[in-house]
Each structure stands twice: as C-alpha cells, then as structure tokens.
C-alpha cells in the first residue's frame, strides 16, 4: 500500500492520536463524573452487578467503534492507495528491462517534423531516464538488419543511449512476436527478480501477426508488459506494394509488360500518378493515373500496367514511382532489375543432320521456335541452335536456356551427367522419344545413373504402335490445364484432341502428378519433373511427323515456345528481392573454384554506395556465392573481378505488406497478449499519469464509507442498549397525575 498524500505520515500519527480520543474522553468523563446524592445505593449496586458483564462488553465495543472511526477518518485523509495492478511502477528502479524497438518501415510514417520511429526512440530514452529506469537493460530491434544490436543486458546507460540513437528504420516488416520471444529469452537469463518488458511500436496490426499463438506472456506472468504506441493525426499513404515483369519474353525489341500493384492505406480517397523510369531516373518514360478509394473500401487497390520495349540487351534498372509525397515515402517506389536478352538461346540436339531439310528431325521444332528463321530485321525472342549428338558439347550447355533432345540415342554417360548438372543449376531439358531412343539405355543413363531418383520423370518401356502401318491411333484426351506449360493453351479441347499418335514410347511407373497430358488409352503423353533447380519434360513421341502428327498440330508451336519462355522467366525471378532476402548466384561453369565476388550497392552506413566482397562455395557442379546484406533498398551489382564473364544485377524492395497501416485496437492488443499486467499507452507520460490518476486504487472513499457506517452504528448500538426512560418507570402513578 502507498499514499497519495505527501503528508501521509502526519495523518497516520493524527489517526493514532485520534483513536486515543475516545479513551481520553472516557477518562476525563470518568474523572469528572458529577456527584449526586441518592436515597439509597441498594438498587443501583444490585443493578450494576447484574449488568456488569454486559456493560463491559458494550463499553469496549463502543470504545472500539469510536477509536476505529477516528482512526479510519485520519487514515482516509492520508489517501492510501493500492497499486498492485501496476507492478510496472512498483519500485523506483526495476532490476532488468528489455526495450523492443520496432524499426519496420511503417515506423517511417511522418508525424510533423518527426517520424514514428524518432518518437519511439524518444520514448525509449525517456524510459531509461525515468525514475523507473532499470539497473540493466537491452534494446532489441525487430529488424536488426544491417546493424544488429547485441542481445545482452547491460548496465552501461551510455551504450544503451548510443544503441537507441544509432538505430535506423529498416525496409522490411516487423516481427514483433518473434522479437518478444527473444526478449523473454533474454530476461530469463538474468537472475534479477524484477523484470520489465517495454515495446515501442506503432499502431499497425500487421506487426502483431502470430499474437494469438504467443504464449510467452502467460508463461512469464510476473513480467509486466508496457506497449508504447503514440497516437497520431490522420495520415495519407498510397503505396506501391509490388511490381513485376510479367512478360515471359525478355528480349530486345519485344514489348515487356510490367504490372504494378498500388494501394491506398489512408482514410481519404487519393488521385495519384505512377511514373515509369528505365535506366535514366531523371526522366519518366511513362505516366499513368490512378484513382483510389479510402483504405478498406472497394477500389482502394488497383493494378497499373506499363509496357516498354528495350532496344539493348543486358541488365536494366526499372523504377516505378508515385508522383508526389505522403506520410510514408519508402513505399512510394519499387525497383526492378531486368536482364534483357538479345534472344533466348535454345539448343536442339538431333541424332544426325538430314540431307533434305524437311526430313531433318529438328525441321518442325526449329521452325516452331523461330518461324522467322533467324532474321535479324524482325525481333524474335528465341534463338534455336541445332546440333547433332556427335557434335554435342556438354561444356557449352550453360549458354542455353533450354536443351531439346529430339529422338537422340547413343549419348555418352558424361554427356548425360553434364545434362543432369545443367538442369540442376536451374535450366530446362526436354526429351522427345523416338526410334533412336533405346529404353534400356535411357533408363540406365537418365534414370539409374542420375541423382534424385533419375533425370526423367519415369522409366521408359518399349514403344507401342506402328508408325508405318498406323493400324492403331491414340489421341491426347487429358491435359493438366493449370500447368504453366499448358496454361491458356488448352482452353479448347480440339487444340489437343486433334493430335493423332500412331506410335509412342510407353512409360513405366509414372507418378500421377508428373503427367501433364495423357492419351485416350491412359498412357502418358507429356510428363514433367523438377530436377534440382531446373525442369525436365518428357514427350513420348519425337518432334517429327512419323510417330504422330503432333508437330503439325496447333499445340506444338505454342507449347515449344512456352517451354522456352517458362525456362527463361525462372532466371529473372531471382534478381528481384525483398529487403533482407539473401541473394545467391551460381558462378559455375564460368567460375569453377572458390571465387571472390565483389558486390556494389547501398552498403554504406547511411545507405551510400559501397562495395564488399564475398567468397563463393563450391559443391559439385555448383559454385554458389551468397550475399545477405540486402537490407538497404536499391540496386546491387556483382562481378567477379578476375573474370569478365561473371556479373549481374539485382534489386531490393520493401515488403509491400508493411504498407498496410491498419490499426489494432488497444483493447484487442491487451487481450491478445494476455499477460497478467499489460499496459498500452500513447507515451510513458500517459502511462505514468494513468498510474497516478486511476491505476492506483484509492481507498479513501472506502474508508469514508466505513467511517459513515461506524458513525451510524455507534448511536444505534449506544441507544439499543439504553432503554427508553419515557416508557419505563418503576411505577406509574397515573391516577394522581391524571387528577392533577
């Protein structure tokens, strides 16, 4: 118990003295009892003796009542209070405290001259400077990123202040729940019995994802939690939450489509322009307006589309940005790194070169992939290169995005191994079966001789049917339309049902999920298997017109092109990252041993351009270099100083989810955390004033009620034991009185 009155001790002493008043009065009263003559004491004595015990009890009871009344009154005036509910402020100093500082990018929202983050840092300092400052403390950032702070309780206040002052906002989402787990783990290590947990964050609901399953506060019931979340005036925020190069063909001269998602996270409707910059950020190439409804209403999110044609191959930097500013600038732009190829190189391997072009095995396939025949005047995305099995060079495989083995037999084991490694590195292999494919040989080389259960989706069996007699015909009757290879290509059944198959390679034990198309007899026609980071497709007929009419049907050309474009897109996806996501590049085969790679980007302390080096790590056909210092937003380039062949570009963006500034209510937050003592306040001073005003359960009202009750009881008890003398006399002399 504590006292609000600074002179509480005076009131307590007064109460003790006041409690003695009835005793003193009684003593004085006794001493000053008037003397009255009375005819006889006989009846008085008898009466007194009869009532002695009862009178003693009554006197004591009344005395106690009166003493209690005075004492309670004085005690009430000392304004005592109980503050058990605020263990946070139980003592002047706490033993240990962890301050969790939210530095996700929503904390960059501006509030006048300050940002949420700068205010949070001010509150953190205020806590460490208040009279409840902890003896030991640690500051944990929700996004340590570039500048991780040591997770250790220290008593050095200067260091703590330096940690706070040096903390910066990151470009990623907050993981408050994860950071709180670390905070509790840190507090568990201290022997101090007096612990506190402070969380300085904004009002964003997204930061508290996973709170419902967060049991740490309940398991650490003795640790009070205080969440400081400043209120703020209304804000405006339109965010570009994602930007994506949608086009599969990323080649010179081809229109490249870029989709941009934009969302209004503010309470008012917004009209903004989105600008497209390509390589030159001083001049916008395009501008598109968007009209957005208030957050949470239909029309608050839209998709904007840009289309741009690149005229040069190589790496390019794309920037989409909102015109103007709002409360949170960091999500007003998004960066894309894009490598534009001259054309997508594809290798077609056939058994042998035919003398007559239309009899060549790759006749249909080459024309499907490049109908223009390599004309340089008209841009075309794919550049097929034909070779024979005899001239097949496994060392040059990485030059190509896709390799087609079109009815090829007699491959050497080394070549097959090279193909397996090639696919494992993220490329695509398409195997077409035909008369040159010996099932036993393929099974041995491609299935039994390869890792991960085989390079092929399934083993091959002997062919079925007769391509010459054509006395049995199968049709393709089932397709997996959701497959990226068939998506939008098989909307109409006649596209694939016109495929007539006279002879095909039977497949043994193909898992159902591997089959993308089936014949009407149920045997697979088109199969798929992921292998390493790449993909393998198996077609049970060759790309010639002997075993089937597949090459001359509607599906053949678009399928072949789709295979190539899907293969090319996979590479592009890995160079646009979220801030904090690690970057990886495989230097093999350009660099086969441990290699030093130089990374250049916004790596300086303040985000200025700087370079750092990393060493790669080899593992078989891989030579991987990793870079994880991607917290700063921007473009990063990498190169192998010792080789001109290895270089690249990637870009980092903020996590678009963090632009959702939807708030979580104080009551919900308090309830979801579920700690025995959880406080949510706008600031430390707000919390303290609440503690001083209302969190202290003042007792004076109760004590005054007790005083009133005692004051009522005292005369009731006193008079209850006193008979009414008007009603009671020894004998009423009524007759004479009436006569008078």
């Amino acid at each position, binding site marked *: 118990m504590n006292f609000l009155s600074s002179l509480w001790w005076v009131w307590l002493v007064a109460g003790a003295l006041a409690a003695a008043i009835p005793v003193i009065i009684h003593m004085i*009263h*006794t001493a000053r*009892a*008037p*003397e*009255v*003559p*009375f*005819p*006889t*004491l*006989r*009846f*008085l*004595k*008898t*009466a*007194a003796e*009869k*009532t002695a015990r*009862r*009178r003693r009890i*009554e*006197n004591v009871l009344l005395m106690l009542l009166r003493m209690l009344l005075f004492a309670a009154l004085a005690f009430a005036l000392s304004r005592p209070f109980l503050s058990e509910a605020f263990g946070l402020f139980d003592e002047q100093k706490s033993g240990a405290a962890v301050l969790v500082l939210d530095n996700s990018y929503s904390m960059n929202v501006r509030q006048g001259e300050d940002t949420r983050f700068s205010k949070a840092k001010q509150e953190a300092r205020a806590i460490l400077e208040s009279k409840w400052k902890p003896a030991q403390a640690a500051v944990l950032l929700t996004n340590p990123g570039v500048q991780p702070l040591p997770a250790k309780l220290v008593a050095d206040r200067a260091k703590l202040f330096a940690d706070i002052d040096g903390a910066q906002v990151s470009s990623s989402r907050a993981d408050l729940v994860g950071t709180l787990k670390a905070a509790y783990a840190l507090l568990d290590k201290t022997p101090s019995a007096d612990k506190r947990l402070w969380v300085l964050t904004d009002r964003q609901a997204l930061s508290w994802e996973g709170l419902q399953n967060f049991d740490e506060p309940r398991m650490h019931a003795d640790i009070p939690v205080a969440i400081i979340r400043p209120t703020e005036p209304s804000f405006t925020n339109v965010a570009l939450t994602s930007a994506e190069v949608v086009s599969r063909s990323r080649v010179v001269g081809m229109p490249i489509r870029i989709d941009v998602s934009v969302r209004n996270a503010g309470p008012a409707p917004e009209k903004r322009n989105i600008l497209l910059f390509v390589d030159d950020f001083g001049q916008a190439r395009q501008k598109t307006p968007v009209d957005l409804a208030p957050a949470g209403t239909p029309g608050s999110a839209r998709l904007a589309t840009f289309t741009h044609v690149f005229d040069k191959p190589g790496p390019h930097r794309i920037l989409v940005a909102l015109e103007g500013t709002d409360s949170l600038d960091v999500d007003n732009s998004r960066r894309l790194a894009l490598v534009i190829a001259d054309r997508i190189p594809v290798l077609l391997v056939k058994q042998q070169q035919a003398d007559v072009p239309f009899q060549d095995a790759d006749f249909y396939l080459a024309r499907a992939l490049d109908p223009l025949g390599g004309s340089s005047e008209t841009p075309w995305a794919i550049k097929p290169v034909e070779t024979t099995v005899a001239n097949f060079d496994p060392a040059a495989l990485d030059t190509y995005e896709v390799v087609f083995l079109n009815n090829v037999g007699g491959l050497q084991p080394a070549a097959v191994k090279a193909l397996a490694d090639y696919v494992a590195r993220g490329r695509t292999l398409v195997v077409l079966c035909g008369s040159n494919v010996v099932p036993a040989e393929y099974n041995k080389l491609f299935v039994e001789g390869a890792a991960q259960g085989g390079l092929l989706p399934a083993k091959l069996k002997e062919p079925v049917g007769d391509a010459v007699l054509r006395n049995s015909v199968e049709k393709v009757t089932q397709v997996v339309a959701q497959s990226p290879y068939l998506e939008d290509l098989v909307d109409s059944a006649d596209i694939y049902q016109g495929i007539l198959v006279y002879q095909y390679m039977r497949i043994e034990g193909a898992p159902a999920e591997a089959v993308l198309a089936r014949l009407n007899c149920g045997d697979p026609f088109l199969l798929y298997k992921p292998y390493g980071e790449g993909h393998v497709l198996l077609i049970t007929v060759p790309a010639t017109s002997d075993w089937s009419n597949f090459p001359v049907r509607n599906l053949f050309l678009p399928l072949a092109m789709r295979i190539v474009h899907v293969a090319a897109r996979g590479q592009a996806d890995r160079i646009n990252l979220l801030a904090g996501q690690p970057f990886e590049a495989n230097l093999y085969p350009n660099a086969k041993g441990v290699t030093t790679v130089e990374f250049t980007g916004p790596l300086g302390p303040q985000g200025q351009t700087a370079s750092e080096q990393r060493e790669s790590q080899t593992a078989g056909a891989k030579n991987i270099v990793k870079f994880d210092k991607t917290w700063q937003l921007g473009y990063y380039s990498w190169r192998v100083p010792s080789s001109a062949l290895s270089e690249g570009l990637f870009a980092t963006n903020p996590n678009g989810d963090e632009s959702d500034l939807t708030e979580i209510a104080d009551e919900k937050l308090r309830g979801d955390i579920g700690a025995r003592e959880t406080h949510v306040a706008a600031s430390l001073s707000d919390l303290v004033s609440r503690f001083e005003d209302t969190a202290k359960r003042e007792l004076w009202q109760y004590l005054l009620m007790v005083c009133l009750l005692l004051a009522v009881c005292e005369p009731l008890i006193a008079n209850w*034991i*006193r*008979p009414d*003398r008007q009603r*009671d*006399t*020894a*004998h009423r*002399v009524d*007759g*004479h*009185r009436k*006569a*008078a």
Partner: protein
Amino acid sequence: MTRTTATTPHARYRYLDPETLHRLGNINVVARSVVEGFISGLHRSPHHGFSVEFSEHRPYTPGDELRHLDWIAYAKTNRFYIKQYEQETNLRAYILLDCSASMNYSSGKGLTKLEYGAFLAATLAYLMSRQQDVVGLVAFDREIRLHMPPGGSPAHVNEMCRRLEGLKSDEVTSLAKPFHDLAEMIKRRGLIIVISDLYDNEDEVIRALRHFRHKKHGLILFHIFDQAELEFPFTKLTQFIDLETEEKYQVDPKAVREAYLSELRAFIDRYKKACSDSDTEYVLTDTSVPYGLLLRSYLTRRQQIR
C-alpha cells in the same frame, strides 16, 4: 362537654397549607377496620350496648351515618342535623413518619420526601382532629425520635406541626425495631398510618407491619418516593452518594437503568403483596404528586368502599 370542631386552618404552621386544607373541605379520615372506642358516627366500634347520651346537633356532612340523622330537627328546620353524642368518635390514630436520611431526598426544587411526608402527616392530623379523632405522631429512623401520644385538640395539632417542623433526617433507616416497639406500646386498637420510603430489609419490615395487624390495628402505608427514584432519569456518568451511609458509587445510569427499575419494581411489588396479604392499605406516591390531591383522591375512594 362541648366539642369544638377544628375548622380554622393553622396558617402559621408550615405543614398546614390553608389552600390545601380548604380544598380538602370536610373530607373525613375513616377507619376501614373495626377500631376500639366509643360508638362513633364515623368509625365502627366493637362495643355495643353502651348508652351514649345525646350531646348536640351538628350540621350534616356527606358521609355521615343516616341513622344518626335527626329527622325531627329536619322537620322543624328543613335542614339536616346529626345527633352528636358524648363521645361520637373514638378513633385513635398514630402517624408514623420515617425521618431517616433517605427521606431527606429531593431530585429537584420540590419537596423532600420528609417534607412531603410531614405535609401528609400534618394534614391527616388536622383532618382527624377536626372529626374529633385523636392522632399521635411518631417520628423514627433507627430509633423512635419523637413520640406524641394521640390527642385531638387544636393545640395538640399545633404542637404536632411545630414538632414536625423541627424534625431532622440524618440517620440510617431501621424500620423494624421502631415498628415492633410501637406495636407493643400501643395498647388500644387504632389506625396506624406509616409514611416512609421503607428502605430497609423487606422481610423485617413486613414482619413488623404484621405485628401491627396482629395487634388488630388498622394499617395504612404511604410508600413515598421521589420521582427520580421511580423514573431514574439520569443519563450521564454519575457518582451517586448514599444519603444514609454517604457511600459513593459511580455508575453509568444508562447502562443500569433497566436493571435498577426492575429491582425497584420488585421491591415495591413485594410490599404491595405483603400489604395485600395482611389487609393493609398501600398507597404508592411520589413527591411530584400534590399531597392534597393524593389525600383527596385516596380518602374519597376510601370512604366509598367503607
């Protein structure tokens, strides 16, 4: 022998208040029981067959026996006269007045119990002498302090009043011994009027009172209290001082009032019962009741039930 009726109030005596006497008028004190003496117009005599010579007439007063009414005189004068004989009445009364210290109590500015009792005694004596009765006075505390044999002359009453005025009360009460002594002393039947607060051992007092009854005396007991004794109106812590023993006793009146009144009630009821059992008239009064009013109502009632 000419009897003079004491009709003139003795204003110079304190205990004879003319106004009260005037109010009492011609009321008589009659004996309820048979008393010894001559045949009287008021009191029944045990003696029969005595010849009594006519003495004179006196005007009829209500209550007189109609058998003594002189009808011849009425016929002549159209007025009622009573024949008086030589010795019309022979009531011998003794007034026993308690003058112990406890009788010297008054709660307010009114009469003390002793003064009240003296008023009663004087008034009764006057009334009886006026009706040709003889009355004596005994004042006592633990001993007999004053003994005036019965007399009926005005001079006797005057002397009685004078002696009453000189009474002091500063001794403890002991009723039994004086009562027994008197019971033995008084030979002839008479009327014993006790005026006291009876603060003594009830058993002994009752036994003493029965002694009077045993001697065939008529007995009237005026049990006198002060109003404060009966109501016990005290509220504050008080140190009570016993008037007889001067003993002090501090008590909270509010705490003991109920028990005190219960004790007093039991005390009074005991005397009431004892008087009822021994055919003794019992009159409870307190000093706040005007003694004249008390006597008037009592004696009137007494006359009606004779």
